[in-house]
C-alpha cells in the first residue's frame, strides 16, 4: 500500500517536472512571437527520439511575411529546421545560420512548403519540438 503512494508521488513529481520543462521551452519560442507578428492560432508540437524528423506541412500566402520559430529543451539552437518546396528544393536551413531559433520568410507567390525539424544532438537527446508560425500584420 505504502509503495503505491510512493509510486504515485514519483509519478506526480515527474509529471510536474515534465510540464515545467515544456512551459520553459514554450517561453523560449514565445520570445520571438511578438508584434507585428501574429500567431496563426495553432500549437504545433511533436515528440522526437534520436534521429527522427518531424514534418510540418503548410501553405504560405503570397504577399505575406511569416516568422517560423522552432524550440526544444531549455536553450536556443537545439533544433535544425529546413524548409522545402513541393519539389523538394531546399529553400532555407537554419544549419547555415548558426542554428537560428527563428527566421522570417517573405513570400512572393502562395507556396506549399514542408518544414523538416530534427534535434541537433541526436545521440543523447529526445524531446518535444515546438514550432510556431506567425504572419506579419500590416505587411
Amino acid at each position, binding site marked *: 500500500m505504502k509503495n503505491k503512494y510512493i509510486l504515485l508521488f514519483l509519478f506526480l513529481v515527474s509529471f510536474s517536472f515534465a510540464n515545467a520543462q515544456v512551459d520553459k521551452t514554450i517561453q523560449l519560442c514565445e520570445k520571438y512571437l511578438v508584434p507585428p507578428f501574429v500567431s496563426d492560432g495553432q500549437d504545433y508540437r511533436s515528440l522526437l527520439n534520436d*534521429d527522427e*524528423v*518531424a514534418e510540418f506541412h503548410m501553405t504560405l500566402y503570397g504577399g505575406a511575411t511569416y516568422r517560423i520559430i522552432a524550440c526544444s529543451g531549455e536553450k536556443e539552437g537545439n533544433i535544425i529546421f529546413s524548409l522545402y518546396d513541393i519539389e523538394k528544393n531546399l529553400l532555407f536551413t537554419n544549419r547555415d545560420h548558426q542554428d537560428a531559433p527563428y527566421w522570417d520568410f517573405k513570400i512572393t507567390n502562395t507556396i506549399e512548403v514542408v518544414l523538416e525539424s530534427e534535434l541537433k544532438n541526436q545521440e543523447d537527446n529526445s524531446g518535444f519540438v515546438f514550432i510556431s508560425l506567425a504572419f506579419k500584420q500590416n505587411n
Partner: protein
Amino acid sequence: MKTIKILSIVLSFFVLYGLSSCNSSTKKESEDQSINDETLAEIDSNNVTIIKFKNTLFSIPSPYQVSILIKKANIEYNPELVNSLENIANYTSNFKKAINMGVYGTDLAYLNMNKQIPKAVKYFANLKIMSEELQLSGAFNPTVIKQIENNMGNEDSLLYILSKTYRESDKYLKENNREDLGVLILAGGWIESLYFLAKVADETHNQEIINRLGDQKHPLDNLIKIMSQYYNQSPQYMKIIEDLIDLAYVYDGIDVEYEYKEPITDTTQKITTINSTSKLILNAEHINLIAEKIAKIREKIID
C-alpha cells in the same frame, strides 16, 4: 486521382487509429500491420526516419488573414456575412459549440477589421459563453478577457490577442487530450473564412480574392488529414469530413502550375525571400461550385 489519394489518407488514418486503440483477431492485426508497413515504407526514403501521422503536422492558415485581405481589397463591409448571434441557442452539444467557436472567432476578426465595435462586443460575449461551456477558461481567463475588451476597435492589438488566445486554447486542449474539440475550432474558423472568400469572390470578381479562394486547395487537404483521425468518433464528425472531401472534389479540378526560383536570403535581417511562382487555373464554374458547397457546409454547422 487526388480525391482517391485523400480517401486513402482517410482510410490510412482510420486503420492506424484502429491499430492504436484495439487488439482484436490475429488475422486483422496482420492485415492492419501490412497496411501500416506499406504506408511507412512508401514514405521512408532514406536513412533518416521520417515518422508519418504521429510526427507530421498540418497547418491551416489563420482565418484572420482572410479578413485582412478583404479589408485591404477595399471590399465594403457586408453585415450579412457573419453568423447570427441568436444561433448560439442552438449549440447544445460540444461538437456544435467547438465548431461555432471557430466560426464566431473569424466573425469577430471580420467585425473588428471593419470597425463594427458594438456588434463585435456582442460576438465576443458569445465567445466567452462558449469558452466557459467548453471549459476553456484557462485560455479565456479574466486577464485575457479584460485585454480583449479593452482593445475592441484597436484592430492590430485585438488580432494579436485573439490569435494568442486561440493558440492557448489549442495548446490547452492538446495537453488535456481534447484535441477532438481543438480540430473543430480550427475547422469552424477555416470554413467561415472560406465562406467569406467564396461569397466575396462571387459578388465582386476581385482577382486577389479569387486567387486566395484557389489557394485553399492545400489547406483543405490538410484539414481533411487533421480531421480524419476523428472520422469514427461520431456521425457528426463523419458527416463534416465527408462534406469536406466532397468539396475537395471541386478543388481537384483546379490546376496549379509551380516553378521553382532561387530564394534570396538576407542574413543580417534574418529574412529569406521566396520567389518561386505558382499559377492557379481557376474558372467561374469552380468559383460557383465552391461557393455553393461551402455555403451548404456552413449552413449545416451554424444551424
